[in-house]
């Protein structure tokens, strides 16, 4: 937000400090206070897009995407080439998984500021989610070229490579990510998923432990952690999709199952029952390991 620095103004807060103050409050997760601060800033400088961007950031923190959009519309009305506003727009569309609009906003943001590595990262994430791993690889490589010191990007790179079955390169990228980043739960999530894809349940669990230590309040992190614990039970790993089966395509798996069903029907029934049992038992064990003999807490919307 340093680029938000403005010309000297008179007011209770010294000129040029509003941006820093908002950023600080956002860093502290005090989104309502950041909203108030950005509001003050807007009153002082209503004709510049920066306070609107700051308001959008605060609304993003509060998960109020509609209001964040409104603020960005205002910012872009004042300056259609406002790179931060396009970037934030892409972030919002990414959060709401509106992929078409997200790609448009990202393209516009990159047209104005081709050095914005995080837009390449968002695009890589999107392609990865859609299973287009080659395109994901290309995007994350662009992000890494722009910011090679960012561990988060190296972690996603490792995950994409694992999805492409490039095991050795994925492992190498994971080591790089660990050297670069020790405090980002998202990076550890990627590294956990990458390890899981490589069939290394122990490393996946270790990464998920780091992720949850850093951000236990995130529901996705909790779910992934519990699954990583589940996968560390040997009987779960034996009866639920062994690693070598992952190398097959879905249609190959279905054909194999049909053939096996015709040839060894009773064995298949036993395997299915063991599969269900392994799922249930491992889930129960993990629950007891984490919550003891108490019920799991209710899910709460934040």
């Amino acid at each position, binding site marked *: 937000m340093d680029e938000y620095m403005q010309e000297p103004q008179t007011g*209770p*807060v*010294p000129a040029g*400090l509003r941006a*820093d*103050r908002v950023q*600080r*409050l956002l*860093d*502290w*997760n*005090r989104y309502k*206070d950041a909203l108030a601060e950005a509001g003050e800033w807007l009153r002082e400088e209503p004709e510049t897009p920066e306070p609107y961007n700051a308001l959008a950031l605060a609304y993003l923190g509060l998960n109020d995407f509609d209001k964040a959009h409104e603020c960005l519309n205002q910012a872009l009305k004042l300056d259609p080439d406002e790179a931060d506003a396009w970037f934030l727009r892409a972030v919002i569309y990414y959060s709401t998984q509106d992929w078409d609009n997200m790609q448009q906003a990202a393209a516009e943001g990159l047209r104005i500021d081709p050095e914005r590595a995080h837009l390449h990262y968002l695009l890589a994430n999107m392609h990865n989610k859609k299973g287009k791993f080659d395109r994901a690889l290309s995007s994350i490589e662009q992000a890494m070229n722009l910011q090679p010191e960012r561990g988060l990007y190296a972690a996603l790179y490792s995950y994409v490579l694992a999805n492409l079955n490039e095991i050795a390169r994925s492992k190498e990228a994971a080591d790089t990510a660990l050297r670069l980043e020790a*405090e*980002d739960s998202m990076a550890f999530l990627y590294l956990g998923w990458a390890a899981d894809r490589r069939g290394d349940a122990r490393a996946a669990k270790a990464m998920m432990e780091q992720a*949850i*230590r*850093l951000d*236990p*309040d995130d529901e996705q992190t*909790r779910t992934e*952690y519990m699954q990583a614990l589940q996968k560390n039970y040997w009987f779960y790993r034996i009866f639920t999709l062994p690693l070598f089966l992952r190398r097959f395509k879905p249609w190959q798996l279905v054909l194999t199952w049909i053939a096996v069903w015709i040839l060894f029907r009773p064995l298949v029934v036993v395997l299915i029952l063991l599969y269900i049992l392994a799922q249930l038992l491992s889930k129960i064990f993990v629950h007891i390991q*984490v*919550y003891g003999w*108490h*019920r799991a*807490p*209710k899910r*709460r919307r*934040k």
Partner: protein
Amino acid sequence: MDDDKEQRRKNLKVIQFDKNAEDLVESEKPTVTFAEVGGMEEIKKKIRMNFIMPLKQPELFAAYGRQAGGSLLLYGPPGCGKTFLARAVAGEIEATFLHLELQAILSMYVGGSEHNLHDIFEKARAEAPCVLFIDELDALGGSRQGMRQHHDRMLVNQLLIELDGLASFNENVFIIGATNTPWYLDSALRRPGRFNNLLFVPPPEEEERGTILDLKLAGKPAQGLNVRKLAESTPLFSGADLDQLVRDATEMALERAMETGEIQPLAETDFRRVLKSRQASTLDWFATARNYATFSDTNGEYGQVLEYIKKHRIR
């Protein structure tokens, strides 16, 4: 309550950081004491042993190598009386109360300098016996990513230096930190001699809720209202939640009064209607605290919270 505020305001002195900033640290001589703090017996006992008794019986404590002064950290859901408790500590020992709030902390990070923090500690030493209350301590001594920049580290280090001085230079200076998010605190702050006493301030219990409701309803037409029953039906409500509850119910009674043209007392139906749409704001805090206590509590610091959650069957 407004009278109290007014009285406090009259007692106020003000320390200003610098001529350009309007951020202030309040300084006052509180008149509230522990007698006015409902419940929280365990916490009061611990504070008496660590803060108050060494000041009242210095010879006895000196025989055990203890002197008056020290620090503690209050944590818990917002709106549950941490500030009031800190003010009562100052009232109990007739000490000056310095209140360092978020805006003042923010001005130290942005545009200010760590010298301000030293000035505040110097002021506290000069006014001993003094309670220095650092509200939102996580903002000043946080461990998050945003705190790794050079200047941020300098301010946290300055705080550590000032706290370490507690043992040697800070006789009769009591530092009370408060935070809603203790999990964001720099672990260095919790080492012995710093904020090593972590006290959980829970939401008010039923009896305290009754007292708070009585206070909030004072001066309002609420005859015939069963406050005890109301207190019973508001488990985990913070003081701030109860305040909002009474406000909403008053609004409803006022609407009725406008329609009928006569004074309408607050009725139980008003409260029932409000309670249908309003739940304790502390529930979100407990959900987050439980996650930290379950998944990220390597030193077992939040055992008290888990105990409380279990005891009150919070899900």
